[in-house]
């Protein structure tokens, strides 16, 4: 029940394409869903996050879509660029008490020039 399932494991798109990464969770107590971006040799960095009271959030070229009834959320990268090539992790946490993140298994994205 504590797992966050992420797919696909890897993704290759052409520059300008719209890669979509999907995540699913079981625990309905989760109420904070961040996406982290990780470049080789670096720690993960927060990209964008959503709370379940909204169905979509956009920040620049990055959009999270959230489906509370299906317990699924996804990351869309508009007009993808080679610089977006990285590993992306979804995560889930509760906002009550201390924040404890459960991470997905990651998606390695490669954007071809």
């Amino acid at each position: 029940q504590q797992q966050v399932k992420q797919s696909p494991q890897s993704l290759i798109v052409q520059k300008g394409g719209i890669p979509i990464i999907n995540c699913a969770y079981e625990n309905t107590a989760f109420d904070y869903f961040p996406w982290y971006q990780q470049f080789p040799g670096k720690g993960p960095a927060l990209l964008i996050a959503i709370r379940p009271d909204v169905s979509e959030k956009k920040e620049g070229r990055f959009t999270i879509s959230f489906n509370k009834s299906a317990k699924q959320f996804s990351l869309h990268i508009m007009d993808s660029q080679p610089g977006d090539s990285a590993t992306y992790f979804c995560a889930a946490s509760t906002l009550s008490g201390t924040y404890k993140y459960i991470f997905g298994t990651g998606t390695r994205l490669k954007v071809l020039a």
Partner: protein
Amino acid sequence: EAGVAQSPRYKIIEKRQSVAFWCNPISGHATLYWYQQILGQGPKLLIQFQNNGVVDDSQLPKDRFSAERLKGVDSTLKIQPAKLEDSAVYLCASGVLGGSPEAFFGQGTRLTVV
């Protein structure tokens, strides 16, 4: 604002040896996390501190792993004795207590056990 500092960046040890990792969180961050990231997997929480108290260590292999945050600031994670399956990147993260839920990660320590 300085980020989360970790050292060393890399460490290679033989199995059954001991190793220690150090983390200095962002100034003022009360919450500190240690994560283990095995190659090709997502980070897995090992232990979470709030100030100098342990909030969650349910996934810490306590027979070989230990961690402390004595003064509520920097922290040390120790493995003794190390096993081959401990080869991973050990990430430290910190966050504000009661404020933004964002966790800020350090660059990690890559441990190779041979």
